[in-house]
């Protein structure tokens, strides 16, 4: 089966290597010493690292929620637009991908900084009296993550909404359903696979993001992605970095598996 071979080469073998290294120890000058120990995993139970896990989870959850709230109306609008416009809107959603993510993040730094575009415009309009300090705060990290991952939410939502049979929505209106009920009882259940796919596609990369916290957050706080990068590159403690990576991946996979078990979702968009 080609799909199995693909999974094996690009997923299971690297995962296995991470797992094997995570039981080793760091040599004094940074190499990998082949001893077997669970020390890397017990270290992870330290409240210090648990705090990083909790923080990163919270940030990823908020990012996903904001992306869903912003992405759903947009995807709905695109899906309901005339066909020839749909292509144009979708193209506009995807165009940012033509530019390197790092470059776009730097662009946000110019927009958000004290004497940046946003503050200049708002002050000239008289909406604010003094510059708002957003760059190098958690708010800037959130803006950067939502900006970066919004297309991953919009595209699967659009796919689900475009496929939805709109006559069912019309039927709901005809039966005097309230706007809330139309959304909650008709549209959402019909587009659930798209919502789930979008949330997964946003949540997982947000959990591992490290460029955004570094550049927009001013490296003031550490997220999981930064911790892993730091362990691999600065401390050169590959075994500990591998242990963190492995736990992170296991948690994500367990979460997904549990979700499918509970919800019985058979297929994804």
């Amino acid at each position, binding site marked *: 089966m080609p799909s199995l071979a693909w999974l094996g080469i690009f997923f299971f073998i690297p*995962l296995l290597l991470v797992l094997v290294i995570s039981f080793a120890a760091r040599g004094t000058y940074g190499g*990998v010493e082949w001893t077997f120990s669970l020390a890397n995993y017990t270290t992870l139970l330290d409240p210090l690292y648990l705090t990083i896990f909790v923080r990163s989870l919270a940030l990823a959850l908020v990012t996903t929620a904001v992306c869903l709230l912003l992405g759903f109306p947009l995807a709905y609008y695109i899906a309901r637009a005339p066909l020839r416009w749909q292509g144009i809107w979708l193209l506009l959603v995807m165009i940012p991908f033509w530019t390197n993510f*790092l470059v776009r993040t730097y662009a946000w730094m110019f927009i958000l900084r004290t004497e940046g575009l946003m503050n200049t415009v708002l002050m000239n309009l008289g909406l604010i009296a003094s510059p708002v300090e957003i760059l190098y705060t958690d708010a800037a990290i959130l803006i950067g993550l939502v900006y970066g991952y919004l297309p991953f939410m919009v595209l699967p939502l659009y796919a689900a909404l475009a496929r939805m049979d709109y006559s069912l929505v019309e039927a709901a209106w005809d039966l005097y359903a309230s706007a809330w009920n139309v959304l909650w009882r008709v549209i959402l259940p019909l587009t659930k696979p798209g919502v789930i796919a979008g949330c997964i596609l946003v949540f997982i990369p947000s959990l591992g993001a490290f460029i955004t916290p570094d550049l927009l957050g001013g490296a003031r706080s*550490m997220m999981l992605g930064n911790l892993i990068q730091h362990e*691999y590159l600065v401390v050169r403690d590959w075994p500990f970095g591998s242990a963190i990576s492995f736990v992170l991946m296991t948690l994500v996979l367990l979460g997904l598996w549990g979700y499918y078990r509970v919800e019985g979702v058979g297929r994804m968009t």
Partner: protein
Amino acid sequence: MSARALTVSYSLILHLTLCILCACQPTPEDGPKNTPKTAPDATSQAATTLHYFTWTDYVSEDLLNAFEKANGVKVVVDTFSSNEELLAKLQSGASGYDVAVPSDFMVSIMIKQDLLAELDLAKIPNVGLVDERLQHLPFDPENRYSIPYLWGTVGIGYDSKVIPTAPESWGVLWDPQYKGRISMLNDQRELFGAALRAMGQSANAKDPKIIEQAKAKLVSQKPLVKTYSSDNYDQLLVSGEVALAHGWGGAVARAMAERPSIKYVVPKEGATIWSDCLVVLKTSRNRELAMRFINFLLDRDVAARTTNRLLFASSNREAKALVLAPLRQNPAVYPPDSTFDRLEWITDVGEAIKLYDRAWTELKLR
């Protein structure tokens, strides 16, 4: 000196981003695949191609062209943006580079890891012109493996319009009146080095209690710090976003060129001195050409032109006279003689790195 380079590693970050987007975490085994396109191909043109592995924005094209023409060879440049990245790439199997430019403490790690070839000093006569103060350095006193190339200090860049009297002490970075206008290096050893020196300790402290005190000092400073950055603080100084920046002299010198009110000071409690060194890698197949290339980079005229362009001081003591006068007199480029007795090299602290690492993580969680 981990990130004096202007930017974070594009190739590595792209690679990691892709990995994360695919929801698979990077593994160290990705290394060999990660070998850049320009990575050496030892079998072809072994005699005529030199592979030079150096910092981002650390070469002058015209100087390389001159070497290529004079020797009838081709020089392929590949770059890294931190010492850690250099080591990671070499450890993960990238081989065939001839000459690299690690910083002082990384030279000692690379010697211990047996990555360096012994230099043939007979083929590098310019070694005799190295500044006395850069000779007999603790990590390689006899220049068996390395020769200092570009060097400088880490200090404080400040805007003299905001701070009219030159700050003499690291304490200015803890002064509440500059809250939100301070940037610190996002570099574990340098950041702790600044706090340790401010406390009157060595930047290479290994005592857990002292490292813990340094952490407490940095935690108390954190509310004042606008950003921890190793690569764009010169722009923050130029734009006026920060008035005080803990940083490498060369980068502050770049900021001065655009905003003349920027000045540079090496605090009285002492600061870090660093030197990037030329080394030949053990895997090099063109050792003789590599020696010739090192000798070329250390040449008086070549070195002076390098300093003029990169704003980092050259190790060649005769080159200084040929450097543009404003740079020669700039304390951010050439540290004044009076500062020398209070400069300290960052050295490998061995297992104590774990204490720094933990303290750093705790600082970032506050």
